[in-house]
């Protein structure tokens, strides 16, 4: 129960951060990605503000023997830069640059009940399932 409430709270604060920062507004995101347009550098500061916090605090968190409500830290095990990583990131970036939504903002934007957010999220889930069907290894 603690784990669930904690996950709910983390998602909530994360989501509020997306709204405060402007990430939940796809026009603002495209204003950042479209460097040839009227460029809006704000989102650089969203990433900067977030990473400034994680960069410092993760060191202290990961120095602890285990998390508060779990037996161990679940961290990605892969270390090498490989083709699926780069190709996958490239494909993700294309979708992000077309619509201005990455996964977190798209999900919280569903609450505006906009057609585009619903279409986007449904297609995003389908894309993930499609990958599972064609990929040789699970994940």
């Amino acid at each position, binding site marked *: 129960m603690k784990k669930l409430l904690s996950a709910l709270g983390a998602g909530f604060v994360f989501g509020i*951060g997306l709204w405060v920062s402007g990430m939940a507004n796809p026009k603002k995101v495209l204003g950042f990605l479209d460097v*040839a*347009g009227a460029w*809006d550098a*704000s989102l650089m500061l969203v990433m900067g503000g977030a990473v400034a916090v994680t960069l410092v605090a993760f060191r202290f968190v990961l120095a602890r023997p285990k998390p508060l409500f779990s037996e161990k830290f679940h961290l990605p095990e892969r270390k090498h830069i490989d083709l699926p990583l780069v190709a996958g990131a490239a494909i993700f970036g*294309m979708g992000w640059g077309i619509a201005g939504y990455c996964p977190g903002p798209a999900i919280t934007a569903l609450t505006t009940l906009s057609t585009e957010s619903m279409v986007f999220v449904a297609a995003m889930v389908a894309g993930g399932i499609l990958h599972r069907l064609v990929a040789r290894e699970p994940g």
Partner: protein
Amino acid sequence: MHDFTPISALAGGALIGLASVWFLAADGRIAGVSTILHGIFSSPEDTWRAAFVAGLLLAGIAWQAAGAPAPVREGFPPGWAAAAGLLVGFGTRMGGGCTSGHGVCGLGRMAPRSLAAVLTFMATGALAAYVTRHLLGVAS
């Protein structure tokens, strides 16, 4: 420079960072939204993923209930939204993360894989925005 909002960008970013720190400290998990979302469908028995996504949705509801601005874009073609969603869903699974998992958390862990991913999706994101908005004239 257009519509530059440095204070809200930094404050919102810090909240996203704090939520990610809390999630790692409490649940021992990376707050990577694409991995969490797709995990709901691949291993539905782990209810913490659904709880995190419910938190994201509650945030949107609370934000609008408080009367804060949540502008809805008009006229973006649904076909492009669907194509973009497919690319994002497929690409984040193939590359193992998105702006949150590789960006906020991966850069915070100084993971070389995540730095490579971030540089790649920033580059193709800028390219795709340029092509769709300036060459193809997609309204956004």
